[in-house]
């Protein structure tokens, strides 16, 4: 028995600018499939970050705003507060969310803002050329940690899902991965669950997605998947860290 497979309606036809093997493309598809399945494209507003995904708006057919670096959660707050009927999601990278935007994400989560965050964690700044991110691993070489991340100098990588799950306000916080088909299927379920919590006006929702960055990791896409599995997943444990009662 086989399955059909086709591009979701919410995705445009435009080929992406992402590097070969970059899993941004997978995550875009999962979000678009979710928007299709929930039939919400006409009332959804996405917010693109500053980073590789700044051009995400070229790949979605719904309304979009483009944020300043790190400020997407504040923009989403503004939209959702004045138009609670709209479905709002931010799509952010690790530099955007966990570095410059840490204040915004913590407070949006703590206020229980009813929007959904898709947080792509690939342990490096992609767009600007592979610099160290808050999620860069100890010893991981980047263009700004050429001898490897030195935890004595810059501390340990930040576990965003656990950090936000410590907040008392009810929320849906989960970490998934898209480095293999099994992970992708589970990530899709989590993304759908996140949007459903939003539609029910239930709580803030964030899906952290462990991803690859072959170009800036200096690996082939297949090697990047292996490195992510061996190095990232043990540190960034998958699972649901917070579910509203």
């Amino acid at each position, binding site marked *: 028995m086989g399955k059909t497979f086709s*591009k979701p309606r919410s995705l445009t036809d435009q080929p992406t600018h992402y590097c070969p093997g970059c899993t941004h*493309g997978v995550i875009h598809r999962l979000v678009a499939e979710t928007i299709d399945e929930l039939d919400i494209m006409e009332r959804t507003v996405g917010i693109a970050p500053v980073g590789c995904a700044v051009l995400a708006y070229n790949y979605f057919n719904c309304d979009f705003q483009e944020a300043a670096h790190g400020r997407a959660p504040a923009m989403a707050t503004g939209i959702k507060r004045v138009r609670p009927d709209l479905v709002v999601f931010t799509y952010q990278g690790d530099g955007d969310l966990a570095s410059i935007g840490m204040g915004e994400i913590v407070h949006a989560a703590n206020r229980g803002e009813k929007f959904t965050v898709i947080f792509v964690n690939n342990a490096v700044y992609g767009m600007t050329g592979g610099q160290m991110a808050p999620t860069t691993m100890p010893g991981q070489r980047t263009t700004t940690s050429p001898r490897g991340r030195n935890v004595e100098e810059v501390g340990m990588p930040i576990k965003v899902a656990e950090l936000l799950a410590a907040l008392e306000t009810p929320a849906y916080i989960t970490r998934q991965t898209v480095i293999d088909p099994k992970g992708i299927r589970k990530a899709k379920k989590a993304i759908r669950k996140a949007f459903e919590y939003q539609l029910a006006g239930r709580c803030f929702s964030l899906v952290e997605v462990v991803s690859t960055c072959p170009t800036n990791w200096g690996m082939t896409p297949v090697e990047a998947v292996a490195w992510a599995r061996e190095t990232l997943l043990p540190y960034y444990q998958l699972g649901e860290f917070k579910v509203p009662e």
Partner: protein
Amino acid sequence: MAYHHQIDAERCKGCGLCVAVCPKKVLEIATAVNTRGYFPAYQARPEDCVFCAICATMCPDVAITITEVEEIRAAG
């Protein structure tokens, strides 16, 4: 029900993830470049394809589609 598996050679960036995950080892990377300079994946052994869509699930570029096609009646 019959299916048709297709890789859009122009959209594919030759990342090789589909080749790696295909449970039936159907796919390979072509030796000819597409117009954007990538070596796209293709079905080297289409007869082995079971249309499980694992490759399509893994593809970051939505370059793989699987569609249903009418049973091809035996001729005559």
